[in-house]
Structure formats: C-alpha cells, structure tokens
C-alpha cells in the first residue's frame, strides 16, 4: 500500500474525515502515526455495534399514536412531535460529534440522503433513522427491504394510497429511479407493474408495517423481462439481481467518499465485487478505503464539506458542544441542510451546490462567531408553513468554553513554525500554500502575545480559511 511508505499524517486525517467527521485533538495525538490500515480496522471495529436513537420512549409513542377526534389535542401532539424531531436531530448530531461508531454514523447520514424522506411524526422519524442505522453497514438488500416497509417512507411516497383499484406509482418510480437502478434501465411499464406489486403495503396506527390483502393486486405482472404474480419482495429481488443496481449504488458511494467525478475503472471493479458479495456494504467500504487510489492527491482535500459535516467537524476539533444547543439547528437551516428535512426525495444536492456568496461568508465567519464572540449577522428564511418547524430565526451570541490546553496538546513543539505545521495537519489534513501559511503566521504573531492567545488565534485563523471548508 502506497501511503505506508511516506509520512502517514495526511492519509490518517483524510481517512478520518471521509470515513467519519475528523479526529479530536486527543485522537490526533494518538493516531497520527498509525498506518491507514490500522485506522481502518479501528473504524470498522468501532462501528460494529448498532445503537438506536432513543428520544421517544414508549410513553411518548403511546401518546403520539393514540387516536383522537379532539382537534386541540391533535394540534398539541403535532407540536410535541416537532419538538421531538428537534431532539432527535440534536441527539444524532451529538452521536456524530462524539466520535463513537463514526463510520456507522457517516453511513446512516449517507443513507438518510439516499433514502431521503420527511415526516412530521417523530415516532416514524425515529423508527426510520434506527432502521437506517441498523442496516447501514450490513446487506444492501436487507436495507432496501426494510426501507420499503418503513412507515415514514410508505407515508412520504404515498404508498398508503397505493391500492389495487387506484395504483399510486410514486414509490415504485423513486425506487427505480433514485433508490436502486437509476434512469435508463427500466420503462414506464416497469414502474406501473412494480406499483401494482406494492399495492396493499401500508402501516397501522402504531407505525407497524401491514400487508392489506384486500388492497393488493394478486394478478400477473410483467417486470423487467420477467412475468409472474409478483409481490413487493419479488420486485426487490429482481432489482437486486440486476447488475445495474450494484453499479448505481457503488457509483453513488464512490462519489460521496472518493471523488465527485467517478473513475469508471474503479467503479466497475468495485461494483463487480459488491454484486458478487451479494451487496455487502462493509466489504465495499473496506475495498474503497484500502485502495491505493483512495489516497491519491487528486482524491484528497477536494470535497466541500456538507453543512452537517462542517458543524460536526468543528465540534470535534474544538471538543465542545455548541451552546445554546438549538444553534446547531439554526445553522443547519441557514447553511441548507436541516437533518430530517431534505429538500425532496432526491436528497440534498452536494458539492458546489452548498456554496453561494452568503453561505460561504457565513461558513468563513463561524469560527469567529464561536471563538471570538463576533456577532452572527444572519436570520433564517421563513418557509411560510404555519405548522412548520419553529426555529429561533436569529442568534446573537454563542459561547464555547474551549479547553485550549487540551485541544492543542498534540503539538508539543516549542518552535512556532512547527506548531503552525502541526495545527494545519490537524485541522486541514495538509499544508495550504506557502503564501497563505506566511500570511496566517504573520497575522497570529502580530495579533496575539501570550502562548495561549497565539494557539487560539491560530485555530480561529485556520478554521476561517476556505481550505477548512474542504475535506
């Protein structure tokens, strides 16, 4: 493996960013000289356990799902449900920022964007997220079946209205176009027939999957060259038997974890192995993260961090939770990625789509806001929905009690030049160009006197660079 021969540090930060949300200072001190293969094994082992989000307890759920004709009560529940969705969001962010099981968290986020879905019912939101996290690193076929039976998805893509007498094609269409095989590999007739196979797939008051026989179309269906009395499971099986599905998922994973521009040869061989492993997600990821080309210069430091990756990464680097907590929600909203509220079933458009004049200016001001008490001059857009998620529209101040000694402890060096390099390796994973480094150093030297001030200012400065927006 190529990276093992030279200095490992940039490869370690690269892998930690892509397969997680970056390292904390303490981890950096411990792991920076590891071989990437050692870190990968660590990450895989660390992500083994499935640990569900638990915001709604049995009592909350019982309350939420109770039938009532009382309108005031229903409205009250809607409100409670929205508050719970906020809590789910915060709990998830905490998990990501906490570091444990980071590869599973990262993949859960990936699947949340892949099987993008919205629901106003916190119970369904929690269930769906737990389904995604349970299967995140398992078998894609199992994941797909679980999502097809998931109440939030059945609700979001109108499968409750999909009945023999009036088939609703919404789920079948997105299943083929966005979830599995991709455009160009199926016909409108395939969609119609697949929709018929999913008739009667719905859920009960408590959010449990139910197959309603009387709404199901038991007739013969023609689907992708096959004919039979197919049910939903059969359709999924036929889709999985099609190599284009393995290719579609592999390419998406490649674009998300390696490079926005896929290298056809790499994707092809990964997809072949993925198909032959019967869709083993962990094996696919292992193959990606241990490939030589994963560590090529062209594949490093060229991803624009998603708002969630940026916010989680900041908290990891500073070893702090943002306060007040709701500011995390506010920032997700103004930066364009509020968890559990993807723009549509296609998920969030990524890469350069995150960036425009205002979002970039805001991103570059975050470190100053959190660490220098500079005001954040931004309000969030109103979406006009009376029942929409209520978020504070404006934040003036945030406080972070950063333990500077702790988060700069990886740098034991006495020379300021060396410290500069080490901080850069920690925060950026590499060194920016010479001129930028010089500017930054001069700025720190003239504007800070004590060692602690310097360390702090150096952090703020690196975090305010456009380079910090990349991973």
């Amino acid at each position, binding site marked *: 493996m190529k990276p093992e021969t030279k200095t490992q540090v940039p490869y370690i930060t690269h892998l930690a960013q892509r397969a997680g949300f970056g390292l904390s200072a303490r981890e950096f001190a411990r792991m920076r000289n590891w071989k990437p293969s050692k870190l990968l094994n660590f990450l895989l082992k660390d992500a083994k356990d499935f640990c569900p989000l638990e915001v709604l307890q049995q009592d909350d759920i019982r309350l939420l799902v109770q039938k009532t004709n009382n*309108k005031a009560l229903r409205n009250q529940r809607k409100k409670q449900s929205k508050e719970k969705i906020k809590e789910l969001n915060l709990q998830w962010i905490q998990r990501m920022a906490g570091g444990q099981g980071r590869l599973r968290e990262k993949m859960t986020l990936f699947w949340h964007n892949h099987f993008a879905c919205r629901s106003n019912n916190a119970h369904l939101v929690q269930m769906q997220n737990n389904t995604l996290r349970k299967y995140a690193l398992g078998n894609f076929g199992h994941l797909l079946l679980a999502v097809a039976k998931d109440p939030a998805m059945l609700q979001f893509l109108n499968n409750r209205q999909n009945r023999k007498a009036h088939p609703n094609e919404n789920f079948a269409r997105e299943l083929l176009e966005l979830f599995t095989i991709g455009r160009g590999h199926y016909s409108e007739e395939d969609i119609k027939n697949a929709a018929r196979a999913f008739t009667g797939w719905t859920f009960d008051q408590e959010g449990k999957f139910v197959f309603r026989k009387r709404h199901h179309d038991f007739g013969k269906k023609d689907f992708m060259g096959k004919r039979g009395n197919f049910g939903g499971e059969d359709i999924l099986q036929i889709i999985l038997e099609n190599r284009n599905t393995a290719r579609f998922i592999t390419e998406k994973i490649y674009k998300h974890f390696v490079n926005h521009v896929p290298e056809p040869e790499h994707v092809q061989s990964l997809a072949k192995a993925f198909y032959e492993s019967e869709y083993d997600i962990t094996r696919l990821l292992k193959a990606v993260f241990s490939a030589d080309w994963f560590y090529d210069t062209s594949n490093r430091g060229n*991803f624009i961090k998603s708002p969630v990756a940026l916010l989680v990464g900041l908290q990891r680097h500073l070893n702090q939770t943002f306060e007040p907590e709701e500011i995390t929600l506010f920032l997700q909203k103004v930066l364009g990625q509020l968890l559990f509220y993807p723009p549509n079933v*296609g998920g969030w458009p990524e*890469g350069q*789509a995150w960036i425009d*004049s205002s979002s970039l200016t805001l991103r570059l001001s975050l470190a100053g806001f959190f660490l220098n008490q500079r005001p954040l001059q931004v309000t969030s*857009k109103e979406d*006009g929905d009376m029942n929409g998620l209520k978020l504070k529209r404006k934040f003036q101040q945030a406080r972070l009690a950063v333990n500077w000694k702790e988060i700069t402890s990886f740098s034991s060096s006495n020379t300021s030049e060396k410290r500069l390099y080490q901080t850069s390796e920690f925060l950026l994973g590499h060194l920016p160009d010479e001129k930028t480094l010089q500017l930054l150093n001069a700025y720190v030297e003239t504007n800070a006197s004590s060692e602690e001030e310097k360390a702090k200012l150096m952090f703020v400065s690196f975090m305010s660079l*456009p380079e910090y927006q990349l991973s």
Partner: protein
Amino acid sequence: MKTYTNRRRFLKNSALATAGASLIPGFLKAFERQQLSPAPHEREKILVVVQLSGGNDGLNTVIPYRNDIYYRSRPNIALPKEKVLNLNGEQGLHPSLLPLKRLYDQGWLSILNEVGYPNPDRSHFRSMDIWQTGSSASEYWNTGWLGRYLDACCQGHPHQAIDVDDTLSLALKGKQVKGLAMHDPKKLSRMVQQEHIQTLTTHYKEKPPHDNTNLHYLYKTLSETVSSAEYLQEKVKKAKSSQDYPQSAFAKNLQTIAQLINAGASTKVYYTSLSGFDTHVNQDIRQKRMLESYASGIEAFVKDLQQGGTFEEVLILTFSEFGRRVEENASKGTDHGTANNLFVIGKSLKQAGVYNPAPNLTQLDHGDLIYSIDFREVYASILEKWLDLPGKQVLGRAFQPLNFL
C-alpha cells in the same frame, strides 16, 4: 445583443459614475437616462419577483363576488359584495388592496386567474420547490429558473440577481452562476469587511489557485462576493430616496431594491418574499394584515421608481406556491389548495386588467381549482418578452408565451 447591451451599460455606468452624479436630482437623472435610452425598447429590463410564502388564499384576494358558489362555500369568511373593490363586474379586490386597485386603474396591473400545474402538490415546501425550479410535479431539479437564466445570459458577478434576504433562494441558484443574497448593501459590506476575508481576497487576487478545483471555486466565490459588496455599497451611497415607505421588513426590502434600481445598478433580477399566508385559522384578520402590507409596500415601491424615472424598466411578478381550498374549514380558515391568481405589474403590459376568466367554481378537483394557465407559460412569457431569452433554454421545453406582455 450582448455587445450592444455591454456598450450601453458602459455608457450608462460611466455617466452615472461621475463624481457629481450623487448631486443630480432624481428628475434630472431620469432625463439623463432618457438621453441614454432614446427609445423605450432600449431601456433596461429588470424583473422583480415577490414571493408570498405560505399559500395566499387567491379567492379572498381577487374575489368572484358575483358567484353564489363562492358565498355558499365560505359562510364565515367570504368577503361581502359591498366591501369588494370591483374590477370588471365579476371579480373584485380585497378591500386591503386599495393601493393595488390604483395601479389597476392606471393600467399597470395584469391579473392572471387559475395559474398552476398538473398533478398539484399541496405541501408548502414541495410546491414552492416546483415554482422556484420550474420543474413539473414529477421531477426534482436542483437549480432555480432564474438561476438557469443567469447561466444562459449573465456569466460573471453574483449581484446580477439579488435575493433580498440572508440566505439565497433556490430560484436564484444556477448550475454555474448563483445570485447574491443580502439584506442591504451596508450589512453585506460589514460582513465582507472582516479582516480575514479581506486578506484572503487580496491574496487570491495576487495569486489565484490555478487549477480547476473546489478550492479555486471557493476563492473565486469569495472574491466575487467582495467585489459585488463593494459595487453595491458604492451604488447605494449615491442613492437618495424621498419616498416614504410603510414600516415593515417587506417594505424595507422593496426600498433597498428601489435604491439599487434608481442608482442604475446592473442587477437584472431582484427577489423578495413576504411570509405568513398560511391561514388555516381565523384567516380574516391575518390575511387582511398581510395583503395590506403587500399592497402598501408595492405602491410605495412603484412611486419610488417613478420618481427615479425607472418604472418603465421594471416588471413585478407576484406569486404564491398555491391557492387554498374553495370551501372554508372549521376554524374560519382555509386549507392548502391548488391553482391561484398571480399579479404582473409594469408599465408596458400588453393586456392590463383581468387577463382571463374568473376561476371555475363548478368544476373542481377534490374541492380544489383546476389550473388553466401553467405557471411555466408565465415564466416563458417573461423570459421571451421581457428578458429576451428563449423560454426553452431555461425551462427545458417550449411553453406558449401568453399575451399579457
């Protein structure tokens, strides 16, 4: 076309950029403009889009006050005939829209009924997405219709399309070019005058990253933001407005837009929104207040443009993501509906007044209006007849332009 526009813009900018320009009174500026633009068709063409967020109840905005079905469907919230401001003997405006009625009487307002799209979506976010991107209900697009207009015509600085807000609307996001979000130029300047941003921009200008990476994209965006901020700040420094505006955030946004237009900023598209039209409960008071805010703001804006001699250059489009159910609900409000009316305001309307027949209340789809004008026909009309670009280039397919323009 392009070279011509550029030459004209150069002339205009250099004339207005002279040191004395700020001292020239508005009417003389208007005269100066006329000198530069001898014939009306050579004037600037600017589009201002006003988004009413939440789904404005069109039936209580432009009221079919001769229609019994309307009164039967809304026993509690229908506007009584005698209060309605009559337009054409069949429909009339909500009494709060008196300022708009004055524009109508001047022949500067065109009202389009039953605007919508096939398979309407009743979710706020989804329907707004459809209106902002210009997609059909079954497609998911990541770029806005005005963003794609920028892609097609205006490579260069982001201030060619401005969203008067802190975050950028999807409508103004193109594939290559994105508009600029800002509440006012002063605030934007303060934002980019942070020391590190200035330093980085200078650094970028001296030595831009040479490759085509995302890093380059970030530095380029940053640098363009800084120049746009400087440009806009410079423009409004010279702007003086004697026009009084109502006290509201919406009116303030319009005032910012008027300042920039009157100062001759090279912005082609402005976008602003007014939120709060989601009237499920006690619609009466709420909608009254919202419409008042809308109409009084718009009237002040139009007056301001007239004083600046720029009203001829501006077309104002007002829309909402959907209208509301014909029948009122049990809380003296209305629930999400479908097709809706839409306003176009300007001096060069070909067909002012009520453009097409009032909504058909006898033929409904699950209690909702059925559209007769696709909103993309409205977009195509504006693109082709106002912004001089084939609609197909932006909308992906050809839509028949309408004759209000």
